[in-house]
Structure formats: C-alpha cells, structure tokens
C-alpha cells in the first residue's frame, strides 16, 4: 500500500515531568497536497502536535512519519535536514529575521537545504527568481522585496513568511495560527493567497487555528480534542 505524506499511528506524548499524557492519538493521515484545518481550544496541544509532526519533538511511543520516513529513526542532525527539506513553517507572528530583506528571508530555506535550493532552481531558473515568484504570488510588490523585514507591516510579514514556507515546494506546510494577528479582511486575503500557493506548489497544508470561521475553505477539518484520547480520558488536562 502506498503510504500517505504524513502518517501518525498510536502516538503518545507527555511533556517531561508530566505524569499525564498530553496527546494520545490512534491515527492521523494527511495525503500529499491535502489541506487540513486543525482546531481546538487554546492549550489543547495544537502546537505540541505540530512540533511532533515536524519532528522537533519525539513521542514517547508510537510512530510519526513524514514522506515515509519515521522521525524517531533519524538522528538529531538528520531530523534537522529532513525537516528543512520537507517542511515549510509559518508562525503566528515574528516569522522573519528583522535585519534581512524580505527576499533574503524567503531565501533562507535554500541556504540550509540543498533539496529546497535545487527544487527552487528547477521551478524558476534560480533560487532568487523562485523567491521573487513566490513573493509576487503572495501579492507583494517588487518595491518591498528589498526592504528590511522590520519595516514591513504585520500582514506583509506574514506573506513573506508564507513565501518562505513555499519556496522549493516542500511536501508539507505547517501554519500555526498565522492569521491571528491579522484583521478579518486581511485574514481572508491571506488565506486565499496561501491556499492558492499551496495548490500551485503541490504542498499539503496543516493549518492550525482556534477560529473556525476559516474552516470551510479546507478540504478536511479536524477537531483535536475529538481525536485526542488523552483529553477525553483526563477531562480538562491539556
């Protein structure tokens, strides 16, 4: 059987020093190119789950595999390489290195990952051209490409972060509440651009939010408390 992009089986995770499991999930799969909306109240373990998906944290037991590679089978350095090869990440805010230009920020994954650099070069001729294409694709004018990141508005910064997550077309884009700092109009515009860009890149998107108004635009919606057996068993433990 062909495996999915992301496979999670029988996962148990507890923070160090914590007797209770934080997450206990029987099964979760994300197919290549799929868009998933993951929601749940604050503190239910959404960010922890994202760190597990990205191989930053390892579960105490169970399996998390990205692109058929089990994170637990890799040493720390190999995990770092696999992550940058396969995952683009967008934070809630403060995504950028303030002293680099928008363009240089977008190019960062190409500096650290040969696979992303080569993929970007294949797609657009050169990593620079790819970065410009994704910046333009996120609706940013050429005028802001060279500006230091700290001079950009929050909305512009989030678009630069999205362009950076997509350059070199990683298999998975993880977005951790990227719209929470934006007002409603900008949130919708950002979401349109992000979904279109992910479709173009062929990247799967796992999008986390506690605000369910955006949920219908995704192929699949998952409520974390519904699949987390640790939350069901222990009541309010997060």
């Amino acid at each position: 059987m062909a495996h999915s992009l992301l496979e999670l089986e029988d996962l148990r995770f507890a923070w160090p020093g914590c007797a209770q499991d934080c997450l206990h999930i029987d099964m979760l799969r994300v197919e290549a190119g799929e868009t998933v909306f993951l929601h749940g109240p604050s503190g239910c373990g959404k960010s922890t789950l994202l760190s597990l998906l990205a191989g930053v944290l390892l579960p105490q037991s169970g399996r998390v595999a990205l692109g058929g590679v089990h994170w637990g089978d890799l040493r720390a350095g190999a995990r770092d390489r696999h992550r940058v090869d396969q995952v683009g990440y967008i934070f809630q805010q403060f995504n950028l290195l303030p002293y680099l230009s928008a363009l240089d920020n977008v190019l960062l994954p190409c500096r650290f990952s040969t696979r992303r650099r080569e993929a970007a070069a294949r797609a657009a001729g050169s990593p620079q051209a790819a970065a410009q294409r994704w910046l333009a694709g996120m609706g940013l004018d050429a005028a802001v490409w060279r500006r230091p990141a700290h001079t950009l508005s929050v909305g512009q910064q989030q678009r630069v972060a999205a362009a950076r997550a997509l350059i070199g077309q990683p298999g998975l884009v993880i977005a951790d509440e990227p719209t929470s700092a934006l007002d409603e109009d900008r949130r919708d515009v950002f979401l349109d651009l992000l979904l279109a860009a992910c479709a173009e890149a062929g990247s799967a998107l796992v999008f986390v939010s506690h605000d369910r108004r955006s949920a219908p635009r995704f192929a699949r919606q998952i409520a974390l408390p519904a699949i987390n057996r640790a939350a069901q068993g222990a009541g309010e433990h997060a």
Partner: protein
Amino acid sequence: MSRAFLLGLAWRSAWNRRFTLALTVLSIALSTFMLLGVERVRTDLRSSFGAAVSGTDLIVGARTGSVQLLLYSVFHVGAATNNIRWSSVEALEKLRGVAWVVPLSLGDSHRGFPVLGTTAAYFEHFRYGERQPLALREGQRFRDLYEVVIGAELADRLGYQVGQRIALSHGMSEVSLGASHADKPFTISGILARTGTPVDRTAHISLEAMEAIHVDWIAGAPLPGRSIDAEAARALQLQPRSVTAALVGLHNRAAVFSVQRQVNGFGAEPLMSVLPGVALDELWDVVGAGEQALLLMSALVALVSMAGLMSVILAGLNERRRELAVLRAVGAGPWQVLALLALEGMLLTLAGMALGIVALAGAVLAFNPWLQAHFGLTLQLGQITSMQGLLLGGLLLAGWLASLLPGWRAYRLSLVDGLSPRI
C-alpha cells in the same frame, strides 16, 4: 550552507544590535585595559626598581641588614646606623681585583631631596638600567667646592636652572628646622639627564664640600660661637674622615665572592658587602606584598569583566530567542546556532581586546611623562610580557567560553521550545 553565509548572518545580526553590542565591546575593552595596565605597571615597577643600580659589583657599608644598606646607599631612604672610616675606603681600593671605589656620603638634604657627597668617580662608574652611564642635560660636573649637580626631577620640580644658588639643610626633613647650611650656599653647576632612578631626586656634591659644610658642626648641631664662613672653610683640611657607604667595581666579576669575603672579614672595622642584585631581590620580597595585591587585583578585574561579558550575552539571548527559533525553523541545526553565538562571542571579545590594547597604548603615550615626573616610573609600550600574553589568551578563552554558555543555553532552549518559543 556556506561558512561565508553564516559569517554574514552573524555580522548582520550583530549590526542590528550594534548599540547593545558596542556596550559589550566597551566593557571588554575596559577589562583588557585594566588587566594589561595593572600588569604593565606591576612589571615596569619591578624593572624600574631593578634599574636603580647596575654595573656595580658590590655595595660596602657598616654592618647592618643588606636591604637596609641597599635602601640608604642606592635609594637614599632611611639612614645608616654607622659610617665607615675613610681609611677603610682607601684599603678597599687596594684590594686585589678591585677596579674602582665610589664613596657615598649621605645625611643632608635640600627641601626634602637627598644630598649625596661623592667623588668624580661617581660620574665615571655609576650605571643604571641597562648599564647606562649618567649624562648631563646641561652644565658640567662640580669643579669648585661649593658647586652642586642636581638630578632632573629635582631641577624640574623646583624649577632650578644652572647657575642658581641653593642652600642645603642638615638632616632629611623637608621643612628646615633651623639646622641649615645657609651660611655656605651652593651654585648649581649642572643638571643630569633623566634616568628614572633615585639619581633624579638627588643633589650631588663633592665629599670635600660635605666636609666643609659640617666643619663647624658636631653631633648634628652647629658649634655655638664657632662659625666658620664659607671662604675660611676652603683653607681647612677637608679630607673626609668617614663616609656612609661605597660602591665597588671589579676587574673581573668572577672575583666577586672572594672580594666579598675579604670585605666581610675586614680587620680594622666591621664592614659588610652585598651584591646589588641579591639585595634588590631581597628588597623586592619585602615590598612584593604590594605586587601580590596588584596581581590579585588583576585577577579580580578579570573575573568581574568575564562575569559582565557573560551576563550581557545571556541578557541578549532572551531578546534573540525569536531570532534563533526562526533560524531553527528554516533549517539551521542546533550546532549552527551554537556556532553563530560562539562566533559572535569570539569576534566581540577580539574587538574589545583590540580596542583595549589601543586605548592602553594611547594612555601610556599620554601619561608617561607625568608618571615619570611623579613616580619615576616609565611604562614600556612595545614588549608584551609572558604574563600579559597569558592574560590576553585567558581573556580570549574566557570571552569565548562566556559566549559558549549562552550558546549552550540557546541550544537547550531551541529544543525545549519546539518551533515556537514560549515567551
């Protein structure tokens, strides 16, 4: 990814925080300045101490402690308990192997500066520092009975010129207590070039002059009703009856212990002789407590500045948690983050040290004349002592380690934080 990119990233990140970092660099520069400065003073204090006498093989005086003999004969500090007879000086000159004898007669002063009675041989044979002879800045040696050759500092401090007339006073007190030799004034015939030794503070007269001003004195006080004026004194027999000490030079240094034995076993009166180098070392052991204190101070300065460096970098780390998280998220490994921090710490430390060294060089150039005038201390600029090299290496290592600790903390944090730092 390339090293050049990492270096560029470190530079741009540092430039972004340039004002905070400038303060760090300044504090490292200050530490370097303090450490090297204290060490410089310590070293040069010792060497200018040792430069006070050289080229003399033996110092001869009445039986006393060797440190005491050195103190009064070379540094003109304190007083001799006993004098040595002139006949003993003459006997010294006749000892086998003795090339020259310079008699020294002390006890008088001019406004707190010591007066030394000696012979023309003093100017021929006395050496200081690296066996440098005395040189006259202006004027000439004393020829007439009532002529005096003064040291550079004495001249500069009191503003004396060649040809000026001065009065000597009895004893060493700065304030004249009436026991003055004002009846026999001296004319300044010459001023010596600066040496950085006690010579600079000394007024030199002939042994005969020393005898002449005391001709109507007995037991440290003028004889009542028996004043002999200056011109009348010239006619008297001015052969000295005793001197305070004598510097002895040998034809061959190898004979020094044999001559020392003969002097120490001298039959006519109890004498002692010391090797200047040995006595200087003994004296340095006595005043060495001060040196230890300076060394301790250096260590404390180093400790405090390293702690400062570490706290500045650690405080900055919290500001940088976001930046490091972003780097981790775009694929920088923990080792690369560690390298970034270590690189920055190393460059900061190097920049601070360079600034400190430049500042010290500037300060030495600017303050040397003043130090020379007030403390007789000349700071060397060029040579780095082995201790200074050690200190510099230690400083660099400590600075680098101080930046590794925050790096290690950043490594831990980036793992604990996951991808989104908890702030």
